[in-house]
């Protein structure tokens, strides 16, 4: 067990060129501090110090105390990069390291004790030893073919960053998108992207445009392994993030893509991040995908659903999963997963298999529901500890216990609505003083306000299909045609779509409201209001109804986003929920505010 640093470790690391293999060095961590979700520190070897950075993946080791300030770590994989803007000075990007010793009493200075651990050996010997060390560690009894990969210095995906020029990665294409054409202000083009996974399980999305897209579209095949170099990295666009990576890659015509012949790459165990069934609530209707693991309680027969966009029939099968939280959830399997995997599961249903599914969409059908998408990945009876635990739980107690469906306690409007009327509470001035709220993705708030004005001559409703609620068009003869359902109906229903002005003591704003929320605000359905509006005689009842709704106060749950109107960005506030004001609860909020203001002004 080492109790000191590698002598002259930093000097030897800096004098390496990029083609020789890295020595493993022990350094002391000093000045450890968080920057965003990563940590930076100075690596100290007793003689020299160099700035260093640890990736976000190691943050948990620091937080748990394995890597400590003034402690020793062994650097296993790292790159020395120039600090942009400061020529000559380098910093270490550590991608792999292990804790060696916990915090020492102080920084190690020049008069180091004789280390009993790694002794500094002549450079060549050291390098040779490390090369075989690395190969043995990483490959075990490697076949000659595998060693060939070492001659091409392969970088782990986690080490890539926009400031490092030349790298080569070895990755498997775990997903391939379709080649899409687009038209924008600059002209036409085509684009497609691929999802790449390396041996460590890190994933990144790579996009190709135009010439590069055409060049590589046929080269990349899902499931095959490639060496890729000369791509560029940039920060990922949060709106379109599909994989967990701060960066995304772009390949152009000069990028190099070479299929990794007959070499086998160890397929990393699919990295799952399971969400227990009873914790699925917050993910409902969010963009974030979830992974689940559970025992299959039942499998439905295959159903055929018509896809609204192109009228194609798609097979679907529903299965019910249960887990140790004693809750069940319905998972809809689509297309191939429904037909092939679904049949497999049906055949073994009496054995109650455990399945793990990656990348599921969470919907609100019956409260909470899960749905597979094209990149969902299902593993039956996976060889992981969670599966074993689940199986033994189910065999011993799970089979007998009565479980409840996760959706049953959770109607989206009732529970969630009222609970979220008190979180993220703001005044209307928050919207007026922050015009660019919701620029990236919509932000949610709750607020208490009075409806101050409903314009009587706005288009308050649209004609909607009675089955799917989408807008219908008037048919030539009579009746209404629904594009989505591909059928005509003699009647349609009217559904609200309106803007109302709201006010509170801090300001005013315009809210957009759809049917369910507007109904709560007006107090009657759009169909009923339409009857009042078109009534003969006084015609005042319509006006009265609107008047009654005005100057009533409500609790609103709203989402704020940015919309473009003639190349101008405008704030759009949409009502997601309406609830009556609970005066006692509001008073408590006010009291809290008062005591908070007192504290800050003291």
């Amino acid at each position, binding site marked *: 067990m080492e109790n000191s640093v590698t002598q002259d470790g930093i000097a030897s690391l800096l004098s390496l060129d990029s083609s020789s293999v890295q020595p493993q060095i022990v350094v002391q961590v000093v000045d450890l501090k968080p920057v965003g979700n990563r940590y930076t520190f100075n690596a100290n070897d007793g003689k020299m110090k160099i700035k260093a950075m640890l990736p976000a993946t190691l943050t948990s080791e620091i937080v748990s105390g394995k890597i400590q300030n003034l402690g020793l770590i062994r650097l296993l994989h790292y790159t020395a990069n120039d600090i942009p803007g400061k020529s000559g000075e380098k910093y270490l990007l550590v991608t792999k390291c292990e804790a060696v010793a916990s915090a020492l009493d102080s920084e190690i200075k020049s008069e180091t004790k004789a280390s009993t651990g790694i002794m500094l050996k002549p450079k060549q010997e050291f390098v040779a030893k490390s090369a075989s060390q690395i190969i043995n560690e990483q490959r075990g009894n490697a076949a000659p073919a595998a060693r060939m990969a070492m001659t091409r210095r392969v970088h782990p995906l986690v080490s890539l960053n926009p400031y490092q020029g030349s790298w080569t990665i070895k990755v498997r294409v775990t997903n391939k998108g379709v080649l899409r054409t687009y038209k924008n202000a600059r002209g036409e083009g085509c684009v497609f992207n691929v999802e790449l996974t390396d041996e460590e399980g890190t994933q990144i999305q790579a996009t190709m445009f135009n010439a590069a897209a055409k060049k590589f579209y046929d080269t990349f095949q899902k499931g095959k392994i490639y060496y890729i170099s000369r791509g560029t990295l940039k920060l990922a666009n949060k709106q379109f993030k599909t994989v967990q990576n701060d960066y995304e890659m772009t390949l152009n015509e000069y990028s190099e893509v070479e299929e990794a012949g007959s070499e086998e790459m160890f397929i990393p165990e699919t990295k799952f991040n399971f969400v227990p069934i009873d914790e699925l609530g917050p993910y409902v209707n969010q963009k974030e995908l979830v992974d689940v693991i559970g025992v299959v309680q039942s499998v439905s027969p295959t159903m055929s659903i018509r896809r609204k966009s192109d009228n194609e029939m798609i097979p679907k099968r529903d299965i019910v999963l249960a887990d140790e939280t004693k809750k069940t959830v319905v998972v809809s399997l689509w297309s191939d997963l429904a037909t092939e995997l679904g049949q497999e599961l049906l055949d073994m249903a009496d054995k109650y298999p455990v399945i793990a599914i990656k990348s599921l969409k969470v919907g609100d059908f019956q409260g909470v529901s899960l749905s597979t998408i094209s990149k969902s990945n299902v593993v039956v009876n996976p060889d992981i500890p969670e599966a074993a635990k689940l199986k033994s739980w189910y065999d011993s107690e799970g089979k007998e216990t009565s479980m409840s469906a996760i959706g049953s306690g959770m109607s989206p409007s009732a529970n969630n609505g009222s609970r979220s009327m008190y979180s993220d509470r703001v005044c209307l001035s928050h919207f007026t003083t922050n015009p660019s709220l919701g620029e990236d993705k919509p932000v949610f708030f709750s607020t208490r306000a009075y409806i101050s004005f409903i314009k009587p001559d706005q288009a308050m409703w649209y004609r909607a299909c009675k089955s799917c609620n989408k807008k219908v068009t008037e048919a030539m003869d009579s009746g209404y045609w629904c594009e989505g359902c591909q059928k005509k109906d003699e009647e349609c229903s009217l559904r609200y779509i309106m803007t109302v002005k709201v006010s509170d003591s801090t300001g005013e704003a315009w809210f957009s409201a759809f049917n369910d929320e507007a109904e709560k605000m007006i107090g009657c359905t759009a169909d009923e209001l339409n009857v009042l509006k078109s009534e003969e005689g006084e015609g005042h009842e319509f006006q009265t109804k609107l008047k009654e709704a005005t100057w009533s106060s409500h609790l609103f749950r709203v989402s704020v986003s940015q919309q473009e109107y003639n190349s101008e960005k405008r704030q759009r506030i949409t009502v997601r929920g309406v609830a009556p004001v609970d005066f*006692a609860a509001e*008073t*408590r909020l006010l*009291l809290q505010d*008062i005591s908070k203001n*007192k504290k800050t002004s003291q």
Partner: protein
Amino acid sequence: MDTSSPSAFVNGSLMRRYIGQKVRTVIQVVGSDVGSVVGKSTDDLQIIVKGSPPTTTTPSTYLEVIGIAENENSIRAEVWTNFGNSFDPVNYNELCKLANGEFKHLFI
């Protein structure tokens, strides 16, 4: 608005500051006698209210009482208002503290 005889918001412990003056408070009815009602103030002290209460003085109803504070735990009532059964005494108590403390200038 008639501001000729303002009444201070009090709870049980604040009454002593306003002996002989007009006060208002909310009590939860504990029991009633001929000519008086015994109630619990929002800070859990006993208050006796003299006068003729409205018909509904069932225990656990909340009543607002405006009148002259005779001593630190009794009021000679002039106005009674039934506040019903769902009333949050904690909120009212905080109001009394604030109205007699740092925000006194906003009230009397």
